[in-house]
């Protein structure tokens, strides 16, 4: 009796916590509301299953608890019931997988007009690089990384001379324009993570990885590192400022180019 009651309370309490507690995802600031929608669908399906399973268990514990004279029913198999349950489960799984794969396809297919930008992780800071007027990012080589060239740009590459480089400062993005983020690391794994954008991806030394998104809300957002990268992992922070096109242009105008930065230190 008490056991059945506690089981019911566990199920009901879980649902109540889900609905009433103040802890929920942060308001979204990118186009990935599809992801939020898929999570919501998954919550519904799994929530129903959880309550049904625990509820049924509580019922059994209540109804079939040992009492004097009770004898269990001996029934080794029940083909029909088993097939029926298997099919129902497969349908539920398909109902979650189908939207999941559909949205994943969107997630890994950047639109043709996305602006390419680069984010570089190193222990324990973020740097950013934007293409200049030529619209192209210059070549890089990790072997060239040095105190004056933290991102390892190839000095001879003309495409790189006008690249905008942001170090140890906030990064800015214009609202409403899709960006394809190219991710690079010069030392260990990192992961560029802004909870409001819902997207994240590891950065791997020696490779370039990517994800894409469109900022949909202006504001300042925290950047965190989401892949353990040594003892400074938790303090590897940054900020992204999403602003209107005009504000963004004004900010961009004030940024330094690779050629300038290299010139200054020489």
């Amino acid at each position, binding site marked *: 009796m008490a056991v059945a009651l506690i089981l019911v309370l566990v199920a009901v309490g879980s649902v109540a916590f889900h609905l009433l507690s103040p802890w929920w995802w942060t308001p979204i600031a990118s186009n990935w509301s599809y992801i939020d929608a898929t999570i919501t669908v998954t919550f519904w399906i799994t929530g129903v299953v959880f309550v049904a399973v625990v509820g049924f268990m509580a019922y059994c514990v209540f109804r*079939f608890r040992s009492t004097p004279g009770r004898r269990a*029913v001996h029934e080794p198999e029940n083909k029909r019931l088993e097939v029926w*349950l298997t099919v129902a489960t497969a349908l539920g*799984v398909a109902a979650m997988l189908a939207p999941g*794969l559909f949205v994943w396809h969107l997630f890994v297919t950047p639109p043709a007009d996305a602006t390419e930008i680069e984010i570089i992780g190193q222990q324990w800071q973020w740097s950013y690089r934007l293409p200049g007027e030529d619209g192209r990012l210059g070549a890089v080589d990790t072997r060239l*990384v040095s105190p004056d060239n933290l991102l390892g740009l190839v000095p001879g590459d003309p495409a790189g001379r006008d690249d905008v480089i942001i170090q140890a400062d906030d990064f800015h993005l214009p609202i409403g324009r899709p960006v394809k983020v190219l991710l690079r690391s*010069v030392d260990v794994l990192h992961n560029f993570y802004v909870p409001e954008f819902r997207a994240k991806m590891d950065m791997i030394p020696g490779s370039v990885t990517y994800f894409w998104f469109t900022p949909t809300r202006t504001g300042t957002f925290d950047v965190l590192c989401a892949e*353990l990268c040594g003892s400074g992992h938790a303090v590897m922070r940054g900020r992204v400022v999403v602003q209107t096109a005009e504000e963004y242009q004004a900010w961009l105008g004030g940024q330094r180019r690779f050629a300038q930065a290299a010139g200054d230190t020489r």
Partner: protein
Amino acid sequence: MSELAHGTGGLIPAAEVPEMELPHPHGWWSTYVFSQDAKVIGIQYSLTAIAIGMVALVLSWLIRLQLGFPNTFTFIEPQAYYQFITMHGMIMVVYLLTALFLGGFGNYLIPLMLGARDMVFPFVNMLSFWVYLLAVLVLVASFFAPGGPTGAGWTLYPPQAILSGTPGREWGIVLMLLSLCLFIAGFTMGGLNYVVTVLQARTRGMTLMRMPLTVWGIFTATVMALLAFPALFVGAVMMLLDRLIGTSFFMPTLVEFGERLRYGGGSPILFQHLFWFFGHPEVYIVALPAFGIVSDLISTHARRNIFGYRMMVWAIVIIGALSFIVWAHHMYVSGMHPWFGFFFATTTLIIAIPTAIKVYNWLLTLWRGNIHLNTPMLFALGFIVTFVNGGLTGLFLGNVVVDVPLSDTMFVVAHFHMVMGVAPVMVIYGGIYHWYPKITGRMLDETMGKIHFWITFLGAYAIFFPMHYLGLLGVPRRYHEIGETAFVPASAGDLNAFISVVALVVGAAQMLFLFNLAWSLRHGRASGPNPWRATTLEWQTPETPPGHGNWGPELPVVHRWPYDYSVPGAKEDFVPQNQPDPSPSHAARGLAT
């Protein structure tokens, strides 16, 4: 129709396997220390695993103190924090759960449940334990080595794991990798034994489809471990070489803190594939024995046959096979080729189907049963709740795009603790309360057992259920403190403090369990040979605790499947597997239709 699975009677084949020669102990040392008796080895494995598990438990307290009350315990610096979570995670998964299920339960139960006198290679079996103990000692040594244990996270991802930004890169990581290699070597010796014993040493009449699900679970998990651990082994050897002699298996060209290191050309992602090729099956290496054991607990204590035995066996085997083609679901945001996501999400969600079947069958075993709510049964119920909860959140993380925002957050930590931390631990406790009478001849105290259960179950649920929501909020894992962030409300700190307090209480309740183990050894009620009135062979031994060689002069002969509970027409509500009387006919059992 169902003769295959539950046929009574039938032909018992003549003994084909000659009786084995048992090595006989001479004196105290070879009886209790260098014993070749699987039962003693099983107990040695279990006690060692529980001892090192206590270390991991204390580490979880320290982790929780830091997370619940940041800036209060200043001795827990970031470096120490990373060392704590790494050692906590690795100990729990490998040195506690794997060792306890396979080395502990496997050794004790396989020969007894199959009607064998011992494992087929007793000497190798003994060696397996001593190598395991050495692995544990090497691991413990890293706490005392200069620089301390490694803080690379239990996943040990390179390049970070062997570079200077990570604590324990001097000795810690080397000892960790060495210890893992030793563990795998030791496990392989035991594992081969379990497999050969199951295939070759079953007593007459014990067909594969009459084995208790406990044996099916442990057997399948062992086969999986024999296939999965080698991937970790090569990964560990390669990383040792990268660390010690400067090879570059996993190390690309890189510049650390402005210094160009002499590595180049290796692939960090390759290690992740090797690690998870082991790591995902590892989840099931822990889960399948738990599935098996819990099936037997539920059937025995609900006095009802396990529902859908053949389906249960096939589900175990299918889950075991499928779990080798889902590993990269741990790598959706690792930067591997995005198209892998489609494949691995599909295989991962397909596994949910046989897993769900198992859950249904446990529930349907309870349904129309005669449920005795004793401590083993309570733990079995606790297992179902936590396993279903954790399995369902697995559907979030397996569904590739849903994993993107949740991966590497506290949601993941909550998920895997529920499904492979709490749920298997529930089964371990259930199993210990269930088999302790056979091992010692005395019952564990039920009152202490129930207090232990309720604090552990409700407490663990209260720790890990709300933790999902911290992850949903965006709190990353492996952060010793969240620090200044706009998106985390102050109330999250209160939740963290609450979780930490509950974690301390739950940890303390485990001391009650240890006390119960020790106290009942002398003061527990005498149990007799078969206190639960169970059908399987281990309860039918001539002596309790079973003597060396398990059986008297004659091995038992098996006449039926292990789940003849409440058979209509039978006098008792259980018919032991070795009872020949075929009294209840097929028709009477409602099978022949």
